[in-house]
C-alpha cells in the first residue's frame, strides 16, 4: 500500500484505464501538453498521444457534448472541466443530453460519459471561481454524482466511473489535490452507490462529503476528547443518495449534523434532513442541524472568505449544542 497524493491517485486511474481500453480518452483544457492544472493528467500526453489525451479550446459546452457523443458510440471519455464554475457553460450538454439520452431512447442508447471537475472554495479565488455545485448535478434525474474525499476514493471512484455505463460526474476539490493518503497497490473499485462509514460512533451522526468529510473527522476527534462519540459518514455518492444508509446511522445515534461547504438552500443538507424526516422521524431526538456556508457569493478577502465557509470548529460547536453540552 503506497501513500500518494489525491492528484497522483487520479493520474493512476487515468493511466490504468487508458492502457487497458483504447476507447478510453481524456479531454479538457490544458490537460495534455501542460499536464493539467493540478497535474492529474501529467505525462499522459507523451504516453498516449494527442488523439487520446486531448487539449481542447475553451469551449466547455461543446467538448462536453463531444464526449457525450463519443460515449454513445461506446467510447469511455474522461472529460475534465478545469473548475466547476465553468461547468455552468456545459450544463446544456450535460443536463439536456447526457442525463436524458438513455431514458428518452427507451434504454436503447448508453452514455458512459465521465466528467471530472474540481469544485469548492479554495484560496481567495473570488465569487466566479468558488462555486460548489453538487446540488445542481444531483438535482436532475439521470446523472450519477460522486465526491471523492480521499486519494483512495479519487482513484477508486474514477475507475468505477469509467467502467460504469451511465454518465458520472466526479466532483473533486481544488484544495485536496495535494492531500496524501494510502491507496492499495492492486487495482480496486470504489462503489458508485452507498455511504461510507468513516468512523463509527453512537452519540450523533455527522454526514459529510468531499472536503467536509475532513472537517467532520477533525470535529469527531475533538468531540471524542470531550467524551462525545460521533459517527462520521461520507455520503460519497450524492446521486443516487443512499437513503437506507443515512437513516440507519440516525436510528442508532438519534442525532444528525450535515456539513456542507455549500450555501444551504436546496442543498445536500436539506435533502439529508428530508430523508431523515421521511425514513426516521421518530428516531430523531432533536432537529437535525445543517452546518453550511453563508448564503453569499464567495468574497475575495481572506477573512470574509473564511467566515463564509464552514469548518471543523463550527461542527464541534453544533455538536455540543445538539447534545446540550
Amino acid at each position: 500500500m503506497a501513500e500518494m497524493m489525491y492528484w497522483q491517485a487520479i493520474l493512476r486511474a487515468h493511466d490504468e484505464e487508458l492502457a487497458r481500453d483504447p476507447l478510453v480518452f481524456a479531454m479538457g483544457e490544458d490537460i495534455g501538453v501542460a499536464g493539467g492544472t493540478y497535474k492529474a493528467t501529467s505525462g499522459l500526453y507523451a504516453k498516449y498521444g494527442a488523439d487520446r489525451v486531448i487539449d481542447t479550446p475553451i469551449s466547455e459546452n461543446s467538448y462536453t457534448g463531444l464526449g457525450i457523443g463519443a460515449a454513445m458510440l461506446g467510447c469511455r471519455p474522461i472529460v475534465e472541466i478545469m473548475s466547476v464554475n465553468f461547468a455552468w457553460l456545459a450544463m446544456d450538454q450535460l443536463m439536456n443530453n447526457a442525463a436524458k439520452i438513455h431514458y428518452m431512447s427507451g434504454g436503447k442508447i448508453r452514455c458512459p460519459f465521465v466528467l471530472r471537475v474540481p469544485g469548492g472554495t479554495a484560496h481567495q479565488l473570488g465569487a466566479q471561481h468558488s462555486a460548489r455545485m453538487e446540488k445542481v448535478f444531483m438535482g436532475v434525474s439521470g446523472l450519477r454524482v460522486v465526491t471523492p474525499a480521499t486519494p483512495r476514493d479519487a482513484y477508486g471512484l474514477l475507475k468505477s466511473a469509467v467502467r460504469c455505463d451511465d454518465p458520472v460526474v466526479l466532483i473533486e476539490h481544488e484544495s485536496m489535490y495535494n492531500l496524501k493518503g494510502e491507496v492499495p497497490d492492486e487495482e480496486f473499485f470504489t462503489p458508485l452507490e452507498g455511504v461510507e462509514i468513516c468512523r463509527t460512533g453512537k452519540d450523533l451522526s455527522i454526514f459529510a462529503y468531499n472536503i467536509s468529510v475532513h472537517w467532520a473527522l477533525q470535529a469527531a476527534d475533538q468531540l471524542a476528547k470531550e467524551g462525545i462519540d460521533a459517527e462520521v459518514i461520507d455520503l460519497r455518492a450524492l446521486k443516487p443518495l443512499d437513503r437506507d444508509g443515512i437513516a440507519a446511522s440516525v436510528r442508532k445515534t438519534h442525532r444528525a449534523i450535515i456539513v456542507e461547504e455549500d450555501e444551504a438552500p436546496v442543498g445536500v443538507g436539506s435533502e439529508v434532513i428530508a430523508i431523515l424526516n421521511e425514513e426516521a422521524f421518530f428516531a430523531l431526538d432533536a432537529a437535525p442541524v445543517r452546518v453550511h456556508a453563508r448564503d453569499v457569493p464567495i468574497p475575495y478577502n481572506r477573512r470574509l472568505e473564511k467566515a463564509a465557509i464552514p469548518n471543523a470548529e463550527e461542527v464541534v460547536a453544533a455538536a455540543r449544542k445538539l447534545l446540550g453540552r
Partner: protein
Amino acid sequence: MEASDQRRLLREMLFARRFEERCAQAYQEREIGGFLHLYPGQEACAIGVLEKARKGQDYVVTGYRDHIHAIQCGVDPRAVMAELFGKETGTSRGRGGSMHIFDIDRHFMGGYALVGGPFPLAIGFAKAIQLRGGDEIAICFLGDGANNQGTFHETMNMASLWNLPVLFVCENNLYGIGTAIERASSEINQYLRVAPYKIAASQVDGQDLDVVMAAAETAIQYVRGERKPYFLELMTYRLRGHSMSDSGAYRSKEEVERWAQRDPIGIYKRRLIDASVIDEAGFRSMDEEILQDIEDNIIRYARESAEPRVEDLERYVYVEGGPKPWLK
C-alpha cells in the same frame, strides 16, 4: 442512374410526404401528442443526402424534425409511428416521442429538441469513428437557426482542428420558427459562415433531388476520403408551419405559394415524367399504394401496439444490470 432507382427515390419522397401528412392528421385526432415538427417541402434534403451515405453504417443525427431522417437511415416507419403514438414498440419505447427517435442498430443517433444541441454530439460520433479507425462518417442535419447557437462555432472549430470526419448538412429553410433568417443571422448564406474554420463548404438548391445528390456525393466523398469536415448548405423551405401550432403570420401566402411551385416532389416527378420513367397514372398508383401502406401497416401497427406499463416508469434512468466492478 437506373430508372428503378429514380422511381424508388420518387417513392421515398412521396412516402415521406404522406407519412408526415398522416402524422398531422393523427395529431389532430389526438393519437399523437407533444410537439410535432413536420418535413413537407424539405424531402429532397434528407433523401438526397442519405442516398449518397452508407445507410446503417454512417452515423446520423438531427434535431426535432427527425422522422424522415430516421426512416431514410432504414429505421422501420412502423416503429417511428409507434413512437409518435407513445407505444412500447416505438423506436424509443414511447419514452421519446416525435422529437426523440433513436435507432442505434441503424446508426440513427437521434433527434434532439434543443436547437444546436446535436452539433457537439456529431463531432463526438466522428471522434469515436476516428479512434476506432473505421471509414464511416458522421452526418449532422440541422436548420439555419441552429447556426446562431454557440455550439455551432465551438463545434466547427474542433471539427476542423482535429480533422473529424463529419458532414454538416444545413437545411436552410429561411426561418427559425417565426423569425426570418435575415433578422437572426448577420450572414444569410450559411455556408459562408464556416470559412474561418477552414472547412470546405458549398451551397446548392435543396429542392432538386438530383442537385442535392450530386452535392452530397462530392461532400461525402470528401469527408470519407480526406477524413475532414464538410459543410453543405441546402436551400429549402418548409411548406407547413414550424410545428402544429403556427399562426403563419410571419410569412406571406405569396411566398409560400412561390415555394410550393418548387416542391421537390413536383420537380422530380416532372423530371421523371419528361424522361418517361414514370407517368401520371404510375405516380397515382404509387401514391395510392403508399397511402394504403401507411394506413394498413404503419398506423395500424402503431395503434394496435401496447402502451408502456406504468410500472416501468422508473426503468431506463440508469442502465439495467450495468457493470459494478466493485462487487467482484
